[in-house]
């Protein structure tokens, strides 16, 4: 997955492979998932794939990240709080994060009112 995350920096910013992969490793280690670096997509759970997708999105120059219906992306997600905690640990500088979901999931976002996402 390291290559997957590093790809954006390598192609768009022409960052050397090693440097881009170190950056990817650093981001993964912030949420204690550095072991995923050596994994292939089939070896990861949907939650792990979600984090990888999020870090990959952070690697772009875009200022907005849209998470579209997290409860459908991540299997058996009971509580979004843990996911939000991990996202905050990733220190997304200069990026605004939007979570898009349907009204029937509204109650699951009860604790998010105070967050600056």
């Amino acid at each position, binding site marked *: 997955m390291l290559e997957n995350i590093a790809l*954006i920096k390598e*192609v768009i910013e022409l960052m050397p492979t090693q440097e881009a992969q170190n950056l990817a490793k650093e981001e993964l280690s912030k949420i204690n998932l550095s072991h995923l670096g050596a994994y292939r997509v089939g070896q990861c759970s949907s939650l792990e794939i979600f984090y990888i997708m999020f870090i990959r999105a952070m690697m*772009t120059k875009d200022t907005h990240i849209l998470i579209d219906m997290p409860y459908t992306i991540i299997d058996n997600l009971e509580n979004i709080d843990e996911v939000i905690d991990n996202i905050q640990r990733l220190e997304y500088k200069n990026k605004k994060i939007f979570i898009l979901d349907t009204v029937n999931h509204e109650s699951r976002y009860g604790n998010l009112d105070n967050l600056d996402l």
Partner: protein
Amino acid sequence: MIIKFIENIGTKTINSFDSIYEALQFTFLCLIHIVNPRSYNPAMRMVLVKQIYFTAVTIVPLFIVMAFIFGSIIIGVVIALATEYSLQDKIGSIIITFVIDEFAPFFTALLISLRSGTAVNTEIAVMHVNKELNTLKEYNIDIIDYLFLPRIISGVISVTFLSILFALIMLSSGYIFTLFYMNMDFHTYKALLLNAIEVRDLVILLLKSIAFGFVIMMIPIYSGFKTGNSYTAIPISVLNGMVKLFIAIFFIEVLALLLQSL
């Protein structure tokens, strides 16, 4: 009834020309990317190295064994026939023409088509069906630079390298046969080949290998890229890609023979 029949022929002809035009356009686009230095970003170079490893390096043990077996048998048959028809003085030229001009690039092309051509066709088709190609486009990653170029370049490099290796092993294994069948010593065999080989033979080997390497990757990539949107379209794409690839290989072979006879 007749008008309908003629209309069908017309439609099929137009569709065929359309597909050929589209394929040529795609090839031209890839060639432009090949000569553009900006295509060679770090990610592309990494994929290229991996692709060369998978296409050319991992196959080497099997390739050596096959080249040795085929080399001994085929050179044996050639020498036996040449002896039967009293063409001993032409054995050097026959071996060089047969091995370097024809057999080594052609056999390498067939082997790499079966192994890597099918793999690349399936890989691109699966990526297309899974919308991975769209995801790459969304991230502004040029799929020609990142996915197609490394495979095309690795095809050219691998087929050229393996053709040379195949020719060398085949010629070496041919010595074993000449030793036992004709009682020929190594120096005589070496002199026989060195006297027969010309720069023209090496140029033919290189040009054919480059042409084979290019189509071996180009056609499966294009076929995979043009796959329908369902998983059931993947085997059809591989099947069509392989048929087109084999036609292209035979076309290059015939074209090379025609050019050599000029």
